[in-house]
Structures are given as C-alpha cells and as structure tokens.
C-alpha cells in the first residue's frame, strides 16, 4: 500500500517503451518577436520596462536609440526605441515594444503594436494592437486584433473575402496619403 516514491510495482506485463512526445506539424501561431533585454537607462531617462531577449534573427532598435529616416529590409524588426520616418519590410514583421515610440509609415507583412505609434500602417497579413498600445493614424490590414485597453484613433480599413475559407483580401489604400504628422486626418 505504501510505496516508496521511486519504487515501481512489478508487473507481469513486459515493459512497453513509451514513445517520445511527437510534435504535431501545426503551423506555429503568429506571435510578435520577443523583445530584447532593455539596456540600462541613464538617470535622466525613465527606466524602460524589462523585456525578454529577442531571437537572433530579429533586428532590434533598443530603448534609448533614436533613428530618423527610412528603414527597409527583409528581416523582422523589433522597435523599443524612437523611430521617425518610414519602415518598409513588406515580407517581414514589425513589432513596436512597450517602450517603442514610432512616428512613421509602416509597410510590413505583420505589425504588432505595444507602444506608441503615429502614422499610417499597412499590413499584408495582419496587425495587432496590445492593451498598452497607443495609436493614431490609419490601418489597412486584412486582419486586425485589438486588445481591450488599446487606445486607437484613426481609420481602420479591412476587407474580408466573401468565402470564409479564403484569406481576407488585402486592400491597398493607395488613395490614403496621410502624413504621419497629420494625426486623424483623412485625405481620401
């Protein structure tokens, strides 16, 4: 009745080898790139929120960095600093971390916002706004996820296909030419 923890009750049945767990080949759910470790902040700068290290194949703009200009490429981008200008990574994903402040047009495959973004966003697959996000501008994306608490101001445009099996059609809002500074304005 009382068995030692490591003692196994002898069985008359031969032991059957337990197969190792087999991972099913399910498509991995999309998740934003994990944020990198926040750099130590200067005394005059508010302490950035601690975040986990990012995978090595993600380009990172850490807290404390400020970039002005155009960013383009094919690698995923994680932004936890300040970016102004344009971001064009149409085949990759862009994640704005909780410390990120972006004033830019973003053109990416997937866009995830946890920080502050001001500008026009265009995602060919999906976009997501976390609970701590603050966004002003326009969003054009087949799929949009909005967590409770997200602060959005602007135009949201998505088109769904008639058939539920087909992925939603991405609609390029070429007529939208809002300057990132023209928050909430609509020039359609």
């Amino acid at each position, binding site marked *: 009745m009382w068995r030692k923890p490591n003692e196994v009750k002898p069985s008359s049945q031969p032991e059957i080898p337990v197969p190792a767990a087999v991972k099913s080949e399910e498509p991995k759910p999309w998740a934003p790139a994990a944020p990198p470790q926040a750099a130590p902040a200067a005394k005059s700068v508010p302490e950035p929120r601690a975040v986990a290290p990012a995978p090595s194949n993600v380009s990172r703009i850490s807290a404390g960095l400020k970039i002005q200009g155009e960013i383009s490429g094919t690698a995923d981008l994680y932004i936890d600093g300040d970016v102004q200008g344009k971001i064009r990574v149409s085949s990759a994903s862009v994640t704005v971390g909780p410390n990120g402040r972006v004033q830019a047009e973003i053109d990416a495959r997937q866009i995830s916002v946890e920080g502050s973004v001001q500008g026009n966003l265009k995602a060919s697959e999906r976009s997501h706004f976390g609970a701590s996000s603050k966004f002003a501008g326009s969003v054009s994306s087949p799929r*949009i*996820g*909005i*967590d*409770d608490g*997200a*602060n*959005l*101001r*602007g*135009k*949201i*445009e*998505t088109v*769904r296909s008639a058939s539920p099996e087909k992925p939603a059609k991405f609609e390029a809002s070429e007529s939208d030419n809002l300057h990132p500074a*023209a*928050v*909430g*304005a*609509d*020039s*359609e």
Partner: protein
Amino acid sequence: MNWMAKTRPAGAVPASAAPGKPTPGPVASGAANGNSRVSNGLKEFLWLIGDVPRGRVLDLGPIYQSTLNFFVEKGYRVSSEDILRAWKDFLTAEEERLRTAPVGDGWDKLSPSALAAKFLENALQYQAESFHGVLAWDLFDYFDPEAAPRIVERLSSLVHPGGAVLALFHSRPAERFHRYRIIDKQNVELVPASTIAVHARVFQNRELLDLFSSFRSSKSFVGRDQVREALFVK
C-alpha cells in the same frame, strides 16, 4: 433604393432584406441582460445606413474588437476616435500649460468656448461628408454646454447627407461610467470603465432638438433604463 431618401413613416416596421419576412418591431429597449442592453436605436441606425455599399462609420468611443468585427464583416470601413478621452487629455494638457506658464506671459486661461474651439483644431479631423454613420454613444452627457454644440456642428459637417448619428442620453446622471461595445445588431454591452469624465447635464427634449437642429430629422427610443437613444439624420 436612394438611401438618402430613406425614411420610414412613424410606427412602420423596418423593411427587411427578405421579402415577405418583415423584421420584428421595436422591442423593449434597455432590457438588460447582465451588462448588455437591447438597443432599438442601434437597429434603426443600421437600417438607415444599410443600403450604402462599403459605408464609413465613425465610432466616437474606444474601439473594441467586437464592434470592429461587427462592422467589418458587414463591409463597412471604420474610423475610431475616443473623443471623451481626447477631451480629458486636452484639458489635462491645458491645465499643465497654465501651471507651468511663466507669470505675465500672456497665457491666460481660455474660456470654455475657446477651449472647445482649440480642442477641435486637432480632434475630428476628417474630410467633410465622409461618414455615413456616427456612433456618438453617451458622450454629449459629459461635455459642457459650450463644447457640445461645437462638436455637433463638426459632426454635422462630417456626416454625408442622409447619414445618421446615434447618441444616447441619460435621463438622470448615470450611476457609473460605461463605455459601449456592440454585441450584435440589436444588443450593446455596457463595459464598466474608470471614470474619465463627470456627467455634465441631463438634456431635455427641446434642448436635444435645438442641439441637433442642423439635422433634418430625429427619432428617439426611451428604454426601461431611462436612457434615451436618439437618431439624427442629416
């Protein structure tokens, strides 16, 4: 059907997309189920804007996933601007500006009318007549008498002729602050939220008509919870 001329005689039930199968008439509005309430105003609002292909809707409350999904699945384009929060942030910024302005710098405290005008320099910046429907929720209950008419005037310029504004008015100060989320075409969820504005006034019927005098017609539903849902058609 010319949606601009879309009107319904008083007492008539809304036309249905399925001929021979009229939709039910107004149900007891405000009958709450937990935090939800039946909204005849919403049903009427959707009927008014229903004929517009890919119409544009402006939600003046916080954007919720369910509200966005609701309109997107019907083919609408959605714009969102949490006006109450923007107003609160604006007033906070103005108070900070006054607090930090040097003495004698000429930065006097703005009058309520000037505050409202300054607020609208950055709020509700959209092209004229670009929206077919506006969900104002109960925001007018929280704006002072100087700001509310200016906001209505701005909304009037943003609404396409024939477009509709849905607004809710409490007959008495609300017990707690709520935001609104659409559940389906006739139900709205009241989402408890931290108070960002104080209930400013209770509108009388005449005051509502005067406030929305630039709109050509109006219709009201009063629920059991004493909330008046008003539709104003431009």
